[in-house]
């Protein structure tokens, strides 16, 4: 199955990974020796006896142990501050999914309307241009104040950050549908709803899906930050919690999981995109 180029690339990837692990091992090795740097000694004095437990930046072995422990039992639940990685990721995915879904419901019809109507486009454009560059986390205080629920606020932040790329891409895709196809629909006296679903939607689908893919990417970036703020559950909270525990191997493990899930989400939308892309 593997082409020659593919095999070479895989070997090179493996080599890069091994060099990375090797460098990491070497860089963290000497920390296990008895000699402590001046800064470390000072830090230890400051932190009291507790600091003695942490041996600086964790070597690959410790992180590997964290991987094994967490992945062997991903769904345990031992109280609010001690849940399995599966449960934490499920919480994050649930928030992202719900916020993203709500954004789809708003952005696609609204984007359709904006794309079809030059008047609406001009009228709404200033609002979109101002609202789009606002960091979604800047909405957090307003969301917390008006929604009065940290979980709902998290979902709102995902909603607001997913909205813009989808809205803009939908509007752009709908506005850019080939004139010829619209003219065909016109000469066939196609009813507006049928035209929307059978001509404009399939014609604009690749652009819309690109917007959704960008939105999902941003949503996954934002959820970690949002959960660090609102706390309680989720992968972002897990990272923050393990940092407070000074359990760096767990933090590294969580960071790797965030990357992995983000990649899977992106590939999911990538294959959806392939599904609706047409060749002319």
């Amino acid at each position, binding site marked *: 199955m593997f082409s020659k180029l593919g095999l070479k690339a895989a070997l090179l990837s493996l080599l890069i990974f091994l060099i990375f692990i090797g460098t990491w091992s070497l860089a963290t090795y000497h920390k296990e020796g008895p000699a402590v740097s001046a800064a470390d000694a000072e830090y230890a004095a400051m932190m009291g006896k507790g600091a003695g437990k942490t041996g600086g930046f964790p070597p690959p072995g410790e992180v590997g142990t964290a991987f094994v422990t967490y992945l062997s039992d991903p769904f345990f639940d031992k109280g609010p501050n001690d849940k399995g990685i599966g449960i934490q990721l499920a919480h994050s995915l649930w928030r992202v999914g719900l916020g993203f879904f709500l954004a789809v419901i708003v952005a696609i019809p609204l984007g359709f309307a904006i794309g079809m109507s030059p008047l609406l486009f001009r009228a709404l454009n200033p609002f979109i241009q101002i609202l789009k560059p606002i960091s979604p986390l800047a909405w957090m205080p307003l969301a917390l104040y008006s929604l009065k629920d940290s979980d709902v606020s998290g979902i709102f932040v995902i909603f607001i950050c997913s909205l813009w790329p989808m809205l803009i891409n939908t509007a752009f895709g709908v506005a850019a549908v*080939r004139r010829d196809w619209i003219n065909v629909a*016109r000469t066939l006296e196609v009813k507006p709803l*049928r035209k929307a679903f059978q001509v404009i939607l399939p014609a604009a689908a690749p652009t819309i899906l690109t917007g959704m893919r960008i939105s999902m990417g941003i949503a996954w970036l934002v959820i970690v930050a949002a959960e660090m703020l609102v706390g309680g559950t989720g992968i972002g909270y897990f990272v923050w919690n393990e940092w407070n525990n000074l359990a760096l191997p767990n933090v590294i493990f969580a960071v790797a999981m965030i990357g992995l899930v983000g990649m899977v989400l992106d590939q999911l939308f990538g294959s959806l995109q392939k599904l609706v892309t047409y060749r002319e």
Partner: protein
Amino acid sequence: MTQHFLSVEGLQKVYPAADGKQNPPVFDNIHFGIERGEFVCIIGHSGCGKTTILNVLAGLEEASSGVVIMDGREVKGPSLDRGVVFQSHALMPWMTVLGNVAFAAKSRWPEWSKARIDEHCTTYLEMVGLGHAIHKKPAELSGGMKQRVGIARAFAIEPKMLLLDEPFGALDALTRGTIQDELLKIVQATGQTVFMITHDVDEAILLADKVILMSNGPHAKIAEIVEITMPRNRTRAEMHHDPQFYRIRNHLVDFLVNRSKGYAGSDAAVLHDARHPPVVRPGLAPDEPPPSDSTRPILKQVVNQ
């Protein structure tokens, strides 16, 4: 005035200039009629507004003034009564060949079952020689095959009239010839009324009953209407053996090369009666001048009195 199947009266189109000033009209005072079952080609240089006239007939564009009446009703907006074949085939790439034609048929007969639609469309696709490719996507087809699908789509809605906007313009000569033959066969079999834009003089002679010659724009006019007097059962292979062929061809080429440019200031333009553009039959009268341009209007006046 006799009632034509389609009559175009006093058509004019002015496009607004970029700086807000008025442009001169692309064409003005265009009058012509098409009878039921007639095949009419329109020839003229780029910029004389051929495509605009076709779009007005299709209802896709509005004329600045003038009316188009088809079958006793004014043309206002697009309608299933007029099938259009676009220059760029305009197939929807996400649908199969059959899907494209079925989309049109479903618009015409929404109450038909899927099986009936598919059967109906397959008949038309077989007519253009694409029976084997109905489940392919347009991207898998050659340019000529795509244009055939466009033709099948326009025929499948069984319109009262067919409008073709330079349908073979983008095809190579060989493919073009084959599809011309097919179109000729279908039109002869169905008695379809057709209005077609072309740049190809031979194509016009092969297909048309009448050729409308447009002078150059702006202020483009119908300089004359050439009747193709060769027998209707002509074929591409035999056509050039007919002595009429070269007379007609020379007349058309002469117009395009020499007369269309200088038309605006010529005697013909001064004597021009936009409502009754001169009708010429170069195929029948090789050595005499074509039936005098002035006879028709004068005759008309006598009759009217």
